[in-house]
């Protein structure tokens, strides 16, 4: 026996279905209201999820880093070798990249000039992405130059750049990263280039993910900074990611709120439709009661009508929202199938559930009113 057959055996459901069929336009319009409500809730929710996933992906390369520089209570004018060793021991497996920085102006023979920041380090591979040439793990000779700067000056791989009287051959070109990432107008040199600078200006710790970065930052704080003293200034972007995440959550809630309003409007429309249809059928319901149909049976019949509106509207709305979700993920993430993951599907389930619950709640009063109408009064119509 199929589900339909089984449903058909429930008299209230059967009667409800036929009653809805009597005024198809009204039924369709009431259902449309629910569809719009569900689409509003579910697709705004899904859009929020897509936005959040995209923002996390964009920030991901930055949030796993901890930036350390010399604090106001430091005894030296930078980070000492001993401090770097201590940082290494605290950081464990994470890459620790000490840097010395300066600025210079690069100029070519034909008079073109570019202002660049100079960073000296031993391990650029942990910090930069290289679009051409190599990206050394141990950096003792040559130079890396930002793509944009190289283009501006007409430099290519293998060309020499001059810094502080020394020539360095360009080994790799650095790709500029989007957002807050490094890579614009930079000249990266081996540590030996800035040998006269005794201390490091900054140390970057590159952890596996944002959580680990935060943990390392917390450990560094306790190790170096006692009380209000700030020997080392430790900055982690994990907290930035958290606040962006919480902002997006708020945004998502606001979007859902807007979506819920349309579902509330839809359920008021259903309340109205159900109320009108029970008032119209007052005499008929009186007949039902007269021939011995119980109050509970009348109540269930009308609730079933409201439930049908909710189930059908919710289902159509969920399907439409899925289509919207596919489009949103295609545009924002370039991969429409991401919509099938639970964070998005959750909103389809939520929208459907809301539709059914809201419709049933809207049906409750008309159903109660019709069921408790005294038969004598109802029969008068």
């Amino acid at each position, binding site marked *: 026996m199929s589900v339909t057959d089984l449903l058909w055996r429930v*008299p209230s459901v059967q009667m409800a279905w036929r009653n809805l*069929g009597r005024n198809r336009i009204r039924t369709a319009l009431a259902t449309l209201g629910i569809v719009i409500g569900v689409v509003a809730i579910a697709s705004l929710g899904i859009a929020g999820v897509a936005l959040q996933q995209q923002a996390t992906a964009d920030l991901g390369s930055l949030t796993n880093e901890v930036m350390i520089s010399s604090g106001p209570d430091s005894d030296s004018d930078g980070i000492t070798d001993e401090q770097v060793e201590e940082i290494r021991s605290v950081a464990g497996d994470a890459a620790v990249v000490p840097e010395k920085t300066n600025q210079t102006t690069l100029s070519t023979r034909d008079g073109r000039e570019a202002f660049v920041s100079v960073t000296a380090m031993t391990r650029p591979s942990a910090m930069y992405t290289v679009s051409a040439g190599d990206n050394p793990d141990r950096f003792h000779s040559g130079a890396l130059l930002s793509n944009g700067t190289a283009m501006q000056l007409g430099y290519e791989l293998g060309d020499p750049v001059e810094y502080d009287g020394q020539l360095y051959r360009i080994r790799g070109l650095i790709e500029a990263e989007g957002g807050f990432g490094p890579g614009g107008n930079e000249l990266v040199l081996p540590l030996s280039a800035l040998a006269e600078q005794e201390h490091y200006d900054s140390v970057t710790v590159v952890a596996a993910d944002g959580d680990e970065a935060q943990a390392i930052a917390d450990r560094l704080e306790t190790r170096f900074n006692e009380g209000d003293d700030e020997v080392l200034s430790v900055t982690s972007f994990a907290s930035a990611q958290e606040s962006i995440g919480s902002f997006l959550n708020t945004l998502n809630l606001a979007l859902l709120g807007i979506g819920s309003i349309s579902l509330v409007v839809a359920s008021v429309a259903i309340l109205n439709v159900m109320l009108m249809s029970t008032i119209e059928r007052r005499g008929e319901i009186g007949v039902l009661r007269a*021939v011995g149909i119980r109050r509970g049976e009348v109540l269930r019949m009308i609730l079933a009508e409201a439930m049908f509106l909710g189930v059908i509207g919710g289902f159509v709305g969920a399907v439409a929202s899925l289509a919207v979700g596919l489009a949103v993920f295609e545009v924002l993430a370039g991969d429409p199938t991401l919509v099938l993951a639970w964070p998005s599907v959750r909103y389809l389930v939520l929208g459907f559930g809301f539709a059914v619950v809201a419709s049933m709640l809207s049906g409750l009063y008309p159903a109660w009113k019709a069921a408790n109408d005294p038969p*004598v009064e109802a029969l008068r119509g």
Partner: protein
Amino acid sequence: MTVVELDGVVKRYRSGQEVIEALKGVDFRAERGEMVTVIGPSGSGKSTMLNLVGLLDTPSEGAVRLDGRDVTDFTEDELTEERRSGIGFVFQAFHLLPMLTATENVELPSMWDTSRDRRDRAVDLLQRVGLGDRLDHTPSQLSGGQQQRVAIARALINEPEILLADEPTGNLDQDTGRTILDELTRLKEIENIAIVAVTHDEQLLEYADRVVRLVDGEIQP
């Protein structure tokens, strides 16, 4: 055997500020196998009386007895059970449900009672009222007389002891009305039920075993 009995029944309505006494102490009884016609001008309290006999309403004073049991103080739910099992209704305007077929309309009073299938009895009743070839027609595909015969079959589906008819011929022409009354008379004998018909149609008097005249809420001797 007395099926239904009104004993000194008074029914008062509140209409705005004033109280209207629709029935002023009515004694009435109906026996199995008899057709009682209640006749009277409009506003005489006929419909009120029928509502009380049909357990659709409760009296302000007096007692209502069904099969000798006092049902005066029954709750609405108890009255519903009594109506379901013991009373059939036929209305002036037929009151069939438009989205159901003739057979389904007949089954309606027993529809929620899933413990037994009344399809066979519904078909049997429709055949007996001459609608064996109209089983799957909806009310809009039936004439007024045919609709009223469906309504009669519906009233009998639960094997009631009493059938109440409110102006059963009111919406029908004379000839059709006559066939309906013939039908009721026949069923009254076959099913051994009491029929109480309320009307101001003189035609019904020919078919009545007993006529009760109601004027201003009182039964005339």
